[in-house]
């Protein structure tokens, strides 16, 4: 693979209102001293989709999972994650609250081995919502938001594992949305889906930007350019370039970005 100068980068700060930002974020896995993520400083605009792209192993998941402290158990994370004026990377912060505000959807659909409605209500009940009507209402709203309602409204008591992969993924999105988060993190949510399900998912995500800030990891560049407003390019644990999506795909500033988006990488 061609070696690029990793210190060369181009990172903009979006002029829009910022929902979440990181400052010099470093991630060390295990007890190692080698950073898997170095000095990542990015700001994510509110009610927009931001895409994270980059080759396999470049640190996209590492970065994304650090944002809602999912890496707590396996990694040491330095630097700041600013959310509503608070550094949520502080050990004093209640991580369970953080995760309720910053939801996550994973690469492989991971519905619980429960019914469709229980998949959604389980965490709600754990969070103290017991009113039957409110629970039903949240199930319906979130399934509608995730564009799954019409397909499952008669089977809410059916096992979620009997759904197709694409439906399961949308259920996982509904499950995350039901917690009424502010920000939704998605790690390659469409990688296990066929083109039709993928399109449906993209439409859903665009629709969701009315109320949610979305950060999505994707290997699919068409997808990134179709749905995102901003794109960050990761390489070997560094953020190389961050700008408006159009800019990244048409007139990137850095050679590495250019090579990656044109497919001449490595």
């Amino acid at each position, binding site marked *: 693979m061609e070696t690029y100068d990793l210190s060369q980068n181009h990172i903009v700060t979006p002029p829009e209102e910022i929902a979440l930002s990181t400052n010099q974020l470093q991630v060390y896995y295990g007890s190692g001293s080698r950073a898997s993520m170095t000095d990542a400083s990015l700001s994510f605009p509110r009610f927009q989709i931001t895409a994270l792209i980059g080759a396999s192993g470049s640190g996209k998941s590492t970065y994304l999972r650090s944002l809602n402290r999912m890496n707590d158990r396996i990694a040491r994370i330095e630097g700041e994650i600013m959310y509503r004026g608070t550094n949520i990377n502080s050990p004093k912060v209640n991580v369970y609250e953080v995760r309720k505000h910053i939801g996550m959807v994973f690469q492989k659909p991971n519905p619980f081995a429960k019914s469709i409605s229980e998949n959604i209500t389980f965490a709600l009940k754990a969070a103290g919502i017991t009113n039957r009507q409110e629970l039903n209402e949240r199930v319906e709203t979130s399934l509608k938001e995730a564009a799954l309602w019409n397909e499952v409204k008669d089977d809410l008591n059916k096992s979620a*594992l009997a759904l197709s992969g694409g439906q399961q993924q949308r259920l996982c999105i509904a499950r995350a949305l039901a917690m009424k988060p502010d920000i939704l993190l998605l790690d390659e949510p469409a990688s296990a889906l066929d083109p039709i399900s993928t399109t449906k998912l993209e439409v859903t995500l665009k629709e969701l930007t009315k109320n949610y800030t979305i950060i999505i990891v994707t290997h699919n560049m068409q997808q990134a350019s179709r749905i995102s407003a901003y794109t960050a390019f990761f390489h070997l644990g560094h953020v190389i370039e961050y700008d408006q999506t159009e800019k990244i795909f048409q007139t990137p500033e850095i050679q590495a970005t250019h090579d990656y988006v044109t497919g001449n990488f490595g």
Partner: protein
Amino acid sequence: MTPNQTDRIATQVINFLVLIVVLILFFLLGDIILSGFPHISWHFLTSPSSSFSAGGGIRDQLFNSLYLLVLTLIISFPLALGSAIYLSEYAGNNWRTGLIRTAIEVLSSLPSVVVGLFGYLLFVIEFHMGFSILSGAIALTFFNLPLLVRSIEGSLHAVPDSQREAGISLGLSNWRTIRGIILPAALPGILTGIILSAGRVFGEAAALIYTAGQSAPILNYSNWNPTDSSSFLNPMRPAETLAVHIWKVNTEGVTPDAVSISAGASAVLIIVILLFNFGARAIGNHMYKKMTGGK
């Protein structure tokens, strides 16, 4: 030889080996069940054993075996569940868990006679518990614990990590995720493990001879007071189980029909254990279907 030929020969050898195993099993089971079946009757199952005259049954032994099994599970299941959750969900891979795993390994390979004698010295004599169902249940717990811990840990381990991540990402605590998501998903496997270990406990004799004892006092099945010495529920009474009965009838039995009692009791024992096994399979399948299937 072409790869095709080697493959064919290998397949044939493997099939042959499997056939031998299956034949041995069927021969054993067939022999025990066929020779014992004619002696099983309603009378045999529902009358108490007799020491000298012919015509004794196995009612009390059968009940003792089941009661002992239940007590053993009541003691060992919570311990095993806790340890398995600790090992699979909380403990990492370090010297401490290594030590625990080795301890479990050693425990499961102890000869049952040794465990029986240990139980005799410690519980029966030292703790003055006498020959009792409780002493027997504790001794059996020593066997059951490693089996159960390992099977429960295996079932928990088989639940994919993505389920844990899903729970955590929704703001659930670790414990809530384990209790509400991981344990239910592992339940079919856990139940199967319990039932299979129950089969093993049910057939155990050596560890019980010196702990639960070899005598079967006449039981009063209408006395529901567990503290009364004649009550069938009293855990402090000596209790000869089915497996121990078979052993005893064969070694020192003086009844004229000792051979047929032993054959009948063996068949009953095997049939119950087979039922456990089929039951484990059926329950596991049923629950798996219920969780993944259409309805």
